[in-house]
């Protein structure tokens, strides 16, 4: 068990290192890293200066060594747009992204799971059908469009919710709902089918025939046994939501790392793009690692030697 945890953590470190190598090579993929690094209005003087400053005239392995040793010290170079260290700018925005993801994740769990259970208990009745039609649409609607339609309805027409920015709890409602919509729908569908599967099992029949209270049967016997596949999906979803914040933050002008990434791309501020992608990718990898480890605690049937 301990060995598994250590191995999984080492894997995560290797994956994060791979992201670094990828970001480094990306600069050289077009053959001319200066053009990627230089701001759009750079003069020939600037380009020469950047070439020397970044060491682009040196061999590739020397450049990689410089890049890597800089990164370890938290030095990713300066942002052209803000003229500050790029790393600091990204870290400043990280709390906003984590907050949004956390709220969206809680929303998908607190709405998706009860909805799925409810639909399963009312199988093939009107409420079940309505829930499932809602879920099908939830999965088909692209989240950026759902966001725009919500702005149109709640901000432009009804004027009851703010369409952009962050500050009050009201600001969370639309971005978090949009960020969680796909996962919420999928969770509801999965929960419904898991619950239906479990409810057909013999031990549920046994529990009921013993004369147990229906509530106890549902919560202690049915819900608990349908939890394992749900937990796996939840872990995957958390990572996907984090990656998806790029789109949601752009729709709602949410001042997080996702929006920062897009802004930096639009202003050709490559150092910031590098750090932002690195930070989000690392958090994504760490979440997946954590979920994997958690999963082995939850499912005693798993054999660690084989993982």
């Amino acid at each position, binding site marked *: 068990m301990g060995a598994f945890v250590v191995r999984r953590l080492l894997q995560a470190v290797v*994956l994060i290192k*791979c*992201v670094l190598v*990828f*970001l480094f090579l*990306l*600069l050289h*993929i*077009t053959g001319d890293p200066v053009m*990627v690094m230089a701001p759009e209005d750079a003069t020939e003087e600037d380009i020469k200066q950047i070439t020397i400053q970044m060491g682009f005239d040196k061999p590739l392995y020397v450049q990689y060594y410089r890049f890597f040793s800089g990164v370890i010290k938290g030095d990713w170079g300066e942002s052209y747009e803000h003229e500050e260290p790029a790393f600091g700018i990204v870290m400043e925005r990280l709390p906003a992204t984590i907050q949004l993801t956390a709220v969206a994740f809680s929303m998908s769990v607190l709405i998706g799971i009860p909805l799925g259970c409810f639909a399963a208990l009312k199988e093939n009745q009107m409420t079940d059908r309505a829930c499932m039609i809602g879920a*099908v*649409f939830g*999965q*088909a*609607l*692209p989240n*950026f*469009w759902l966001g*725009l*339609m919500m*702005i*149109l309805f709640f901000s*432009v027409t009804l004027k009851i919710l703010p*369409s952009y920015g962050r500050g009050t709890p009201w600001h969370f409602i639309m971005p978090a709902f949009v960020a969680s919509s796909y996962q919420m729908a999928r969770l509801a569908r999965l929960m419904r*089918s898991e619950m239906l599967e479990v409810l057909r099992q013999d031990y549920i029949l046994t529990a009921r025939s013993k004369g147990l209270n229906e509530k106890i049967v549902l919560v202690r016997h049915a819900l608990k046994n349908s939890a394992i596949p749900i937990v796996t999906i939840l872990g995957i979803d958390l*990572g*996907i939501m*984090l*990656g*998806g914040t*790029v*789109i949601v933050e*752009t*729709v709602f002008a949410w001042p997080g790392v996702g929006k920062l*990434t*897009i802004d930096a*791309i*639009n202003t050709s501020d*490559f150092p910031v*793009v*590098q750090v932002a*992608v690195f930070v*989000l*990718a690392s958090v*994504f*990898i760490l979440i*997946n690692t954590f979920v994997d480890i958690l999963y082995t605690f939850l499912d005693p049937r798993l054999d660690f030697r084989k993982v």
Partner: protein
Amino acid sequence: MVSEQNSLKASQIESDYDQFGEEIHWTKKFLSSLWASKSALVGVIILLTVIFTAVFAKFLSPMDPSEQSLLLNMKPPGFESGGKVFWFGTDHLGRDLLSRVIYGSQVSIIVGVFSVLISGSVGLILGLISGFYGGKIDYMLMRLVDFILSFPFILLALATINVVGPSLTLIIVVISVRMWTAYARVVRGKVLSLKESEFITAAHSIGASNWRILLLHLLPNTLSPVIIIGSLYLGRMIVIEAGLSFLGLGVPPPRPTWGGILSEGRNHIYLAWWIVTFPGIAITITVLGSNMVGDWLRNVLDPRLRARS
């Protein structure tokens, strides 16, 4: 009564022989099951309509999608001017929104179809090899799949497109690099189970070559999961492309894309609701259509999955 009729229909579809004991051709079975499932029929009609629109955009669109007229900017749907009717209204540069949405279907369909074809064939071939040969090749390919899946796709795609510069080809390649993994895993699993079956052992024992077994016996039997995943993924690819265009990293302007129109409309959302509404409806309907067809194909081609869902 209704359910009796349905079950009667279903039994007719599933039997391989008609009332005279003649074998029913598979195309006929396929079509009758399509007819029996209303949602699949709707899905097929939607997809065919979108493909038709994309192919014949030039003839269907009432105006030039990039013709600007600042006098006519942001006019509401149904606006009439100079004998022309702007059914979907106009955008901030006075371009006809209906024509732009019609032309926008081209990029969606090209990206959707090609990324499904490329990722599907790569996944199918690598999955076949991985499952059939096993051993080191299998181990390495499956580690590669795990490796690709452990990164946040959208972010790395954004960074790559930012550096290389957005283009239709790059978007298809980037999407395919990530998506072949889904096909490869499923095909490999299917091959592993088929390898144990008697007809493969029989083929081996009569001295059939590996190539013959791969192409003639394994390939046809692994096609159905590939078709199912492909049809279910078509919609997802279209959404990914629209998302990239929305972020300004899709196919560059002036070529209209659904995501691109949405992104332009976002800046004018307080003045012109129609710009952000119609392209989104187009995306959603296309995705719904592809999901409906995918669900139906899954039911027809893989009855085991039907029981589970």
